[in-house]
């Protein structure tokens, strides 16, 4: 039972981070980003490659991963940001898939990423670090749990202050009407790139922690499904709310892993795995029908059109 809660909370924390970044993009800036998994993957891979192939320390690799995700965010944003709504969605979902396929079989790239064979053995230093941090009394899982949730809280607090500042107000204005914001003297393109970059950096951080959780990387861990799970979490918690991604993520993963409690005599393990996917689909439908604004979202905002 404790193992169940640990698993749920570690995954929930990682996806809360992912959804926080997505919430910055969609919930506050109005950018339809469907390629979030690419930033997640670049975080994991940069860290793992720096540790295993170039023998950097964990901290350097950790910073490197976030910097790489940020830069990648800007690179993706530059062409993509000219597009609005659905067009941006199409381009970003494509970027996510292209990125995964390049990791898997890009010529030259596979020398670093080892293609479908994946990378392992990058997490030792991270787990040994707990002695230095004075957390030696925790077992590895508890230690990861503590680190993940520290990250969630730190990111949440930093975003909270950022988003209620005038900077966040400009982003909300862009979400409502970007031409109006241009007419008010705001450099909309620059703000969109900033939003994209920060959301990507948070996803990169989530990617590093995800890599620690799964222990070995391979391209199949970065399917578009990850993006859709993050979207579901954001919608479930409430788009454009500060705590939505966190609450949404805990509920989502509790349900997702809840199939473990179904006795084998009723449904076999393999069937239960499919049940989860059905459960996620049903959850998305339920949110849209019963509470389109999400758990924390405001009904009034949902009903108002622009």
């Amino acid at each position: 039972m404790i193992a169940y809660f640990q698993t749920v909370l570690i995954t929930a924390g990682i996806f809360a981070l992912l959804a926080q970044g997505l919430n910055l993009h969609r919930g506050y800036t109005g950018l339809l980003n469907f390629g979030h998994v690419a930033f997640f993957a670049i975080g994991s891979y940069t860290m793992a490659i720096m540790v295993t192939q170039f023998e950097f320390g964990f901290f350097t690799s950790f910073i490197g991963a976030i910097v790489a995700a940020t830069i990648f965010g800007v690179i993706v944003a530059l062409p993509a940001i000219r597009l609005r709504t659905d067009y941006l969605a199409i381009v970003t979902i494509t970027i996510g898939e292209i990125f995964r396929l390049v990791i898997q079989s890009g010529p030259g790239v596979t020398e670093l990423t080892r293609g479908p064979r994946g990378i392992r053995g990058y997490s030792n230093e991270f787990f040994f670090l707990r002695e230095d941090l004075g957390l030696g009394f925790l077992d590895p899982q508890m230690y990861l749990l503590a680190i993940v949730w520290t990250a969630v809280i730190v990111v949440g607090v930093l975003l909270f202050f950022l988003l209620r500042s005038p900077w966040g107000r400009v982003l909300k204005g862009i979400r409502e009407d970007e031409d109006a914001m241009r007419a008010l003297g705001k450099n909309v393109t620059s703000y969109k790139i900033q939003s994209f970059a920060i959301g990507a950096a948070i996803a990169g951080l989530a990617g590093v922690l995800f890599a620690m959780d799964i222990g070995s990387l391979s391209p199949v861990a970065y399917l578009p499904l990850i993006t859709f799970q993050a979207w579901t979490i954001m919608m479930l918690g409430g788009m454009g709310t500060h705590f939505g991604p966190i609450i949404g993520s805990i509920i989502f993963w509790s349900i997702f892993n809840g199939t473990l409690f179904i006795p084998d005599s009723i449904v076999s393990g393999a069937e239960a795995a499919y049940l989860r996917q059905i459960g996620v689909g049903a959850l998305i439908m339920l949110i849209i029908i019963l509470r389109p604004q999400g758990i924390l979202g405001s009904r009034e905002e949902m009903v108002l059109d622009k």
Partner: protein
Amino acid sequence: MDDLQLSFGGLKAVDGANLEIEPGKITALIGPNGAGKTTLFNVVTGFYKADGGSISFDGNSIMGKNPHSVAKRGLVRTFQLTKSLGRMSVLENMMVAAPSQAGEKLFAAWFVPWVINRQEKQNRQKAIELLELFNLIEKKDDYAATLSGGQRKLLELARALMMEPKMILLDEPMAGINPTLGARLLEHVGELRDKGMTFVLVEHDMDVVMRVSEHVIVMANGKVITQGSADEVRQNQEVIDAYLGTGGGAVEEALDEVMEGKPADGRE
């Protein structure tokens, strides 16, 4: 203070328009639908790129500048279809428009919160004064989307004033607004003009045009066909032709009727 000259070639919607706006006055830009009035606004404010010609404002060229940098120079526009930021409060709509806010820079909130707080206080004060002036103060915490069409027009003008502009381009400020609110809006425009602000308005209500504007510019087919005082324009044969097509004496009678305040071109 303002010296705006425009000339465009190649862009069909605005085809060789050449005009100058006098500072400190209310200028009306009229013309039949499709004359290129709104397009002209879009080109001047940087929303569309002109193929040729030159635009200068306040002594500097603003040709090909981005909308946000045009706005920062003090040339602010409103929209024909009002663009209120619906899921933000009326007060937030005002605050977001304040110019040069330190807190708009990324991460400023983490490092210089006291600077932001001080500015926010000043801007809130200014926003509240403007909302009081425009009778929107009771609505300050409501979502902008809940305002009526007329109130949104007022909000858009008030929001433009937050930017302390030198010149405001109003695109059909009276469209869809009830007469009482409309009169109030015009009153504000008049008062601001007296304080030295320059206005250009696209308007279809001839009654309004003749009443408030000191200068009238008439456009048709992307060209400026004439300009002058309201009375001069009223008498001009080209204007009559542009609105009603070339025709006989019956047309002039019809035009007189139009100029007396009835719909100019079938709108509203």
